[in-house]
């Protein structure tokens, strides 16, 4: 089951080669190896402390691995970090929004950092259905709206790759459905997606491929037509010991 399932012969958007990360003596990732084809969606499951967030941070070039390499569209995440970051949008449970700024000011700030024209603010805010809330402070928006604004922020520069780290945290079912609806509806260009999530149902629903991380290692990989929810739950319990 742990044999690596490779994407097709097309170009790889993301290549993680033998990633190893330790914090002092605690090993967060060990020999993590995978490739994701352009346009493919990969769900990363795992219990708390499995290394999902560390993996997403390394892929986003926020954090350097202790050893191993990451290539994003053929570019080294370490050596060409700025070019890599231009191709990535990141949505996590942290929204990266400033509560004292309005929704518009938040997007305006990030679009300046990404060198994106001002008109793009209206485009992305319309995409997430917040065009009428642009002058509200981010701090007074509901958690669901903040997360939609966070998606707008991540889509500002039209990234080809979206990294999601438990974006549903703190959202109720309705807000969570809306979040994925927004992400799916915006997927006209078929973006490459990597999502770290606890939700097996949601992950399987959205992803083409899944991996399970446990104690910093990939212990299971599966491809969607061959894998149903019951099988995934069984594998998750078997490899992580968590139901």
């Amino acid at each position, binding site marked *: 089951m742990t044999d690596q399932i490779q994407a097709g012969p097309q170009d790889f958007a993301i290549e993680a080669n033998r990633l190893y990360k330790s914090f002092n003596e605690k090993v967060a990732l060990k020999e993590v190896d995978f490739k994701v084809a352009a346009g493919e969606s990969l769900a990363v499951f795992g219990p708390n402390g499995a290394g999902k967030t560390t993996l997403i941070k390394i892929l*986003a070039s*926020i954090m350097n691995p202790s050893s191993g390499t990451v290539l994003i569209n053929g570019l080294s995440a370490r050596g060409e970090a700025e070019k890599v970051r231009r191709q990535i949008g990141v949505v996590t449970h942290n929204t990266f929004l400033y509560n004292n700024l309005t929704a518009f000011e938040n997007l305006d700030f990030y679009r300046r950092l*990404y060198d994106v024209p001002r008109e793009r603010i209206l485009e992305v805010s319309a995409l997430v259905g917040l065009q009428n809330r642009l002058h509200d402070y981010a701090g007074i928006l509901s958690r669901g709206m903040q997360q939609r604004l966070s998606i707008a922020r991540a889509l500002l520069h039209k990234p080809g790759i979206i990294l999601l780290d438990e974006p549903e945290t703190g959202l109720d079912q309705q807000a969570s459905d809306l979040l994925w609806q927004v992400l799916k509806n915006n997927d006209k260009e078929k973006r490459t997606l990597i999502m770290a999530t606890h939700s097996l149902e949601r992950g399987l629903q959205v992803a083409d491929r899944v991996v399970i991380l446990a104690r910093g290692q990939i212990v299971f990989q599966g491809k969607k037509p061959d894998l149903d929810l019951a099988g995934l739950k069984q594998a998750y319990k078997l490899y992580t010991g968590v139901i």
Partner: protein
Amino acid sequence: MAFWRKVLAITRKDIISEFRAREIIGLVLVFVLLVILIFNFAFGAANEVISKTAPGMLWVTFAFAGVLSLNRAFIMEKEEGCLEGLMVAPISRDIIYAGKMLSCLVFLLVVEVIALPIFAFLFNLNVFSGEILVITLLSTVGFVACGTLFSALAVKTRARELVLPVLFLPIVIPVIICAVKATGLAMEGKSWTDITNWLLIIGSFDLIFLVISFWVFSFIIEE
């Protein structure tokens, strides 16, 4: 041009945010006024004592105010979970450093501009000379250049409010000493030529702190 546009975007964001929250300038200003008042009560208005201790009092006040202000620089980003937002943007770490440094410089200069006249009034001193303004500006640049770096370092620790002064003040002491000496000369009414050497030393420290900070910042900010 692009570098400075992004630096200014960060500074602008910080200033707008501070204007609305009034977390840094307002509180630091209250702290500065309290310290000046305490010194005033402690030393009274005895001219002889004041003329000798005023430069030290002024820079001790500014140093502690600066530490308070610098403490907030990255804590606010961290508390709002926005530091990673800056880190995933396609900008060099230098831009983050320069933007935050510029914000801290603006905040501290605002505090100093308000505190100086109050200090002058309470101690009956003339601090409105070109020399003192240049000394204040140059010293504040060095102070903030070094402090922004240590603020980024401190924010990664648990006892961040304590870590910053403990690590930062010993490093920045040369700038404070030079500022005290130069301010003392300026308050005595000495000319530019008498304080030029001190200004050159402060300027050299500014340059050293800036070069080292730009060089080291990316290692500190990345996990």
